[in-house]
């Protein structure tokens, strides 16, 4: 009875037949390739990455001290407005942080305007806010006219280049009630907001391009899936071949 019982044991790590051993070895090899390809690569990414600031962050750092003490020059204020727009243009920004940065942008734009522009800037922003709360379509001609007028004025104040995509969001980021004061609570949040949105984990693997992709993105989104299909195909092919060799009919 005991010897019979000992004949019937299955253990992945202790195969009792040559076929089981072969199957175990194949499974281990393929799973190792799979695990290293998936998780090993992500560990490698993690290992070599460095916090890398966007250009906007570098410029922000250069001017922030003077902005926060309200001693900034015109160029510094323009630079600060540009970096604020770089974050405001990100879809991912959280609503409360958007409020803080909108205050920063509105205030700095207002500070940059001359006395004549100040009144227009305030009134046009206020008008646009009112129209936006009433329209049923963003193609509304009155809305478009008000938006374009404010956009032209604000862009001329901020000195944004013609091809700069930040031009597209200025008019929609200004808040009339936030123009005169850069609130202390919002000012305190700016450094955290800037570092959160403008510093990224980068390395040679993220900066190298492959077929147009950042390499790490191609590897994870495209290559790994090809590898999975290949590993599955290889397993089936090898098992079929072995079954033919040993004349096994399943």
């Amino acid at each position, binding site marked *: 009875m005991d010897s019979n019982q000992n004949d019937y044991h299955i253990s992945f790590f202790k195969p009792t037949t040559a076929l089981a051993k072969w199957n175990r070895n194949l499974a281990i090899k393929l799973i190792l390739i799979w695990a290293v390809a*998936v*998780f090993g690569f992500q560990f490698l990414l993690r290992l070599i990455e460095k916090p890398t600031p*966007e250009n906007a962050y570098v410029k922000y750092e250069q001017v922030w001290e003077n902005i926060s003490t309200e001693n900034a020059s015109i160029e510094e204020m323009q630079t600060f407005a540009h970096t604020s727009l770089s974050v405001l243009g990100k879809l991912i920004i959280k609503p409360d942080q*958007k409020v803080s940065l909108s205050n920063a942008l509105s205030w700095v734009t207002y500070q940059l305007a001359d006395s004549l522009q100040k009144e227009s800037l305030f009134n046009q922003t206020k008008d646009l806010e009112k129209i*936006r709360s009433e329209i049923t379509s963003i193609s509304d001609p009155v809305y478009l006219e008000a938006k374009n007028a404010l956009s032209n004025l604000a862009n001329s104040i901020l000195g944004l280049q013609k091809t700069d995509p930040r031009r*597209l969001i200025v008019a929609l980021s200004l808040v009339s009630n936030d123009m005169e004061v850069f609130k202390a609570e919002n000012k305190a949040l700016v450094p955290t907001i800037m570092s959160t949105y403008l510093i990224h984990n980068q390395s040679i693997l993220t900066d190298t391009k492959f077929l147009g992709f*950042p390499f790490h993105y191609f590897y*994870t989104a495209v290559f790994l899936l090809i590898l999975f299909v290949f590993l599955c195909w290889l397993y089936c092919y090898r098992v079929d071949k072995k079954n033919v060799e040993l004349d096994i009919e399943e």
Partner: protein
Amino acid sequence: MPSFLFAAGASTQLEGGFKLGPAIILITILCVFVLVGIIFRAKDTTDFYAAGRSISRVGSGMAIASNWMSAASFLGMAAIMYGSGYHGLAYVVGWTGGYVLLLILMAGQIRKYGKYTAADFIGDRYYSKGLRATGAIIAILISISYCVGQFGGIGLMFKWILGIDYAIAVIIGGSVVLVYTLISGMLGVTKNMQIQYVIIIISFLIPLFILTFKFDYFWLLPQIGYGSVVSDIVSGIPIAETTQMFNALGHEYAMVPAPEFAMPWDSATGQTFFQWMAIAFSLMVGTAGLPHVIQRFYVVPKARDARWSVVWGLFFICILYWSAPVYSAFGKILSANPEVGKLSKDAIVVYTAQLGGINPLIVGLLAAGGVSAAFSTVSGLLVAGASAFSHDLYVKVLYPEASPKKQLLMARVGTVVMAIIVTAIALLKLGLIAQLVAVAFSLAGCTIFPLFLLGIWWSGSNKQGAIAGLIAGGLVSLIAITYFVAGVKGVDLPASAFVAKWLGAWFFAWIGAPLAILVNIVVSLITPETPIEIRKFLVQNVHS
């Protein structure tokens, strides 16, 4: 903050009212599904549970892909990547990489074991009626959890097409899928899945060719051509001075640099390296433990077919998974203007096609494809859940003498009850589609996966070990899901920050699955050996 408010934002414009063209496409497709279901309807319980074991390996591969390509794949993946960038690729990798585990460790052996359902296997392998019943209940819970996300997707698409309220859309969509599943059973479902796969993949791919062509990228293979779209997002797109391109709302094709879309575990997304790894791992082990996926291997004639059906299934699945990130990338650029407003992430696939100015009928086909994706999965899940209810609980545990007619009736009652429960939960809108579906994966990874893995590969795993492992995995699941629901409902439980960080609802299997395996092994080693008949069966039938 008046500056961010619109009386009617662009998102409302995109949503629109009733859309005749898309509605006709959707109704036609649904009629085809029901018709095919009737033609190939289940004649008896063997047909209902396992399609008479008459499906070819390519056909089964298509059915696996269709069964798998749910609303979470069709709508949810692009949604996650649109919102969280590289983090979303953890879902892409997790939901495909799991098939390697499934194939190498389980597919052929499961078919050789020769049962109908996951609970059948558990009850038989661990020689316990109690475990069979528990397995059946877990299978039902997993099916319900999985279906919730699907019903959410169906609701979103019905809402978009019919221009009706989300709640009504969920109820209508849920009713239609229920009727279809009841009429057809699994034979009809399997045939339908092959048709559904074709519809799903065509509807998903056509807009990609148009988008890449229209916005001047390499369009012959959009799955590669969008690499430049990703790089453009990272570096930013200036306003073109000469050949300008616009989205459907008239906004320039331009955006500020957004490296957070592609860079790993970016602080802007709020997601961490640990979460990426834990999600990928949980989804992988979950894949190998999902009852409705495992059940697909019972419908092929031989173990060899079961193995090759995985290869085909994975290939068909990957066609969609290579494509989903394209929508998120284009969606990111086309909705970059703040005027577009806040879009429902789970519908970003459809919104992207709309913003890309694609013909409304093609967008309608895309939305109908989304519904098909959800339908194909829901029908498989409802059948798996109903099988667990009628076959594993009612017949095998409660009334072994029940006639086949009675069994079929109970399967249908089970389907109706499940659909009602799922509809009720879907109306609560607990999270994004992909996240809700990920809960089902973690649950499967903590419970079913360890039982199958050890049950097949270690004859030493016995009833006591299985029970102990199930308790360990079940406890981890219970804690994670309780904290998740409490968090959604605003109830603050002790150590909630800790649990949210390490035991999130979408990735608790990273610890639950290894723990359940470990407990199973330890308890099995110190309790009586597995009976000789079971070990003999494993040696002679499963591993021969």
